[in-house]
């Protein structure tokens, strides 16, 4: 058992803009480029939202689209979930944000 104040390997991801349910912009500082595709894609897959890659910095799913900049020191992530109920879009956005902050990259997760 381990008790700590912080999660090991957690990423700082701040919500910088909330437009409506499922429409948000996030900003994340980091010390090396972050590959968001496996992190966000895995969560979309677990939620049975049929993720598919759209280029090297975007994912589409049955509710909408997520795209990001792939900078060295920070990323901006744009979540645009425009289909489905307001409740579902809100909950999926929250699940994606949790994954962005805490999910381990696939190589570390298993």
């Amino acid at each position, binding site marked *: 058992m*381990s008790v700590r104040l912080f999660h090991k390997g957690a990423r700082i991801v701040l919500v910088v803009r909330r437009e409506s349910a499922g429409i948000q912009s996030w900003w994340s500082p980091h010390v090396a480029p972050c590959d968001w595709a496996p992190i966000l894609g*895995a*969560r979309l897959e677990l*939620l049975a939202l049929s993720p598919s890659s759209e280029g090297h910095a975007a994912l589409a799913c049955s509710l909408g689209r997520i795209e990001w900049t792939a900078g060295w020191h920070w990323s901006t992530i744009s979540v645009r979930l425009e289909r489905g109920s307001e409740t579902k879009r809100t909950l999926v956005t929250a*699940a994606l944000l949790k994954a962005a902050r805490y*999910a381990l990259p696939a190589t570390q997760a298993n």
Partner: protein
Amino acid sequence: MPTVTQTVDISAPVDRVYSFIADRPEGAPSFIPGLNRIANVSPTKADVGQTWEYEFNWFGLVISGQTRCTALDRPRSYQFQTITGNRSTWSYRFEPKDATTRVTLDVEYDVPQNMLARYASQGTLEKMNQERAAEALSTLKGLLEE
């Protein structure tokens, strides 16, 4: 040990609801408040004895440990226990009702004494845990319904 119990009716077939919870434990952070990370699920197929590691934010403290599936009766029941870290037993029951599924969650848990001191009374903690369990099932319903 204190226990919290919550029930929700979800407009989805029982097989889908059961699979969402039992077949991919990695998905639990999507609907359980405070559960931020699950890793090292082994083996990948859900069965009694399957284990995984968790990190849980328990009202300000990050508690990590290991979990083990202890009972599985598809699609009627599913149970796992945290075997290190804060001891708890999570039992799900699934009852199909027409086109919906009634999910009942029982969580039996130990109360860490340092947290008990922080929140002054066990009653306060139990209320907070009841609210968390209700939120978990409400979120589960929202994610599974169209």
